């Protein structure tokens, strides 16, 4: 086997892929949230629609977004592979008494990253089908701003978030993303070998803050829409 292939298929190499793609997704989530907060500007959706148009037409962003899709898939597929391999390594026989203790993280979350990630994946598929697919396929109403036709992505968002079922679906999904990140954020640094007496406490703090605040920010959008439309 070529040394590089061997590296990427070694236990540490596989985890390196998880860590780097995970960190990329973490940065993406922040950018995505900042963009989405424009939904809350009371201008009938103009700022958000212009932003959505920019995000789907700007060549640099388009290129980055293909990277994003690839990274989500890579992270998910590698995650499922790890899950399967780790189960196999455990062997068929479990312990009669289950008692996973942990020192540096929440063991209950950390040992269920595969399951949590799969829930996040299902959310992503539904979420993208709902908005991204509509934007790409263009079966959206249009708005004219300064004489330019712009897809009105705001309209389906508003429609979806007046439905309590969708609101709950989004809010609950954010809880799972939050849990995934609660362990994932700090874990990705440890995987890269970035563990340091001086910085690790800060990374853990930042990770916990991120895992609470970002999903909370995302969850607030459907809640605010729902309350405003009531």
């Amino acid at each position: 086997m070529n040394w590089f292939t061997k590296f990427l298929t070694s236990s540490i190499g596989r985890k390196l892929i998880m860590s780097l793609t995970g960190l990329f997704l973490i940065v993406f989530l922040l950018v995505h949230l900042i963009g989405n907060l424009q939904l809350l500007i009371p201008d009938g959706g103009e700022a958000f629609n212009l932003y959505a148009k920019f995000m789907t037409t700007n060549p640099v962003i388009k290129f980055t977004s293909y990277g994003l899709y690839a990274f989500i898939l890579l992270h998910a597929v590698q995650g499922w592979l790890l899950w399967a391999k780790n189960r196999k390594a455990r062997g068929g026989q479990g312990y009669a008494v289950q008692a996973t203790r942990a020192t540096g993280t929440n063991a209950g979350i950390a040992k269920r990253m595969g399951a949590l990630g799969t829930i996040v994946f299902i959310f992503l598929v539904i979420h993208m089908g709902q908005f991204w697919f509509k934007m790409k396929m263009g079966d959206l109403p249009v708005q004219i701003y300064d004489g330019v036709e712009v897809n009105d992505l705001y309209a389906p968002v508003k429609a979806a978030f007046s439905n309590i079922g969708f609101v709950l679906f989004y809010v609950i999904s954010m809880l799972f993303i939050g849990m995934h990140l609660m362990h994932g954020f700090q874990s990705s640094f440890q995987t890269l070998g970035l563990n340091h007496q001086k910085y690790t406490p800060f990374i853990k703090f930042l990770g916990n803050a991120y895992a609470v605040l970002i999903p909370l920010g995302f969850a607030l959008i459907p809640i605010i829409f729902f309350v405003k439309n009531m």
Partner: protein
Amino acid sequence: MLKEKLKKMSHGNMNLTLKVWRQKSGQHKGNFETHKVQASEHMSFLEMLDVLNEKLISERKTPVAFEHDCREGICGSCSMVINGQPHGPQRGTTTCQLHMRQFNDGDVIAIEPFRAAAFPVIKDLVVDRSAFDRIIQSGGYISVNTGQAVDGNSIPIEKDLSGQAFDAATCIGCGACVAACPNASAMLFTSAKVSHLNLLPQGKVEAAQRVLSMVNQMDEEGFGMCSNITACEAECPKEISVDNIARMNREYISATLGSNKTA
């Protein structure tokens, strides 16, 4: 009340129900057997098992096979999972150093072998941990010329560094980290063995090759990958730190990308 307590302390009679894993060999299927045992709280866990085995032998039954050697917490052979925890409930303690005062009269105690695909059961509580030996063989050594021993102080080593290396070197290779890990990963063990040599000047010479070879061997043995759950650190009788795992990740990545060595 007090009288009773004092009486209990002096005689230390505890009535325990043990659920012990019995398995004739790797080829046989195993199951739990229930036994009643009377023990004193001053006994170690292994002495309590000795009492059980005496009883089984007097009843002409096969005693429970378990591993032990030093009985002073340094050889790492007394591997078993007690109520879901490798080496039992007390932090930083091997089974042989665990005392029955950690338990209460009337307790039900489940005793199982370490479970991992890479640690097949040989008999009852005894598992084959030779996968660890092969990891050590792949790089857990330094190459030096034989001859007169050099003066220990001829190479200056910073105190903090020698402390870290020594902490890593206290790993007794017991395998509790693997047993505790939901992924059956051997990262804590391997990283301790890599660290204790790579941190020191004598080990630096072969550091890149060592980490590549040892990780490669660890993977070949079929251990799982590290999800940074830190269950290993929580259960390690020598309280080896997961900082060693980060160090090994770091060294593995840089040895792969930054040296001309391959595993």
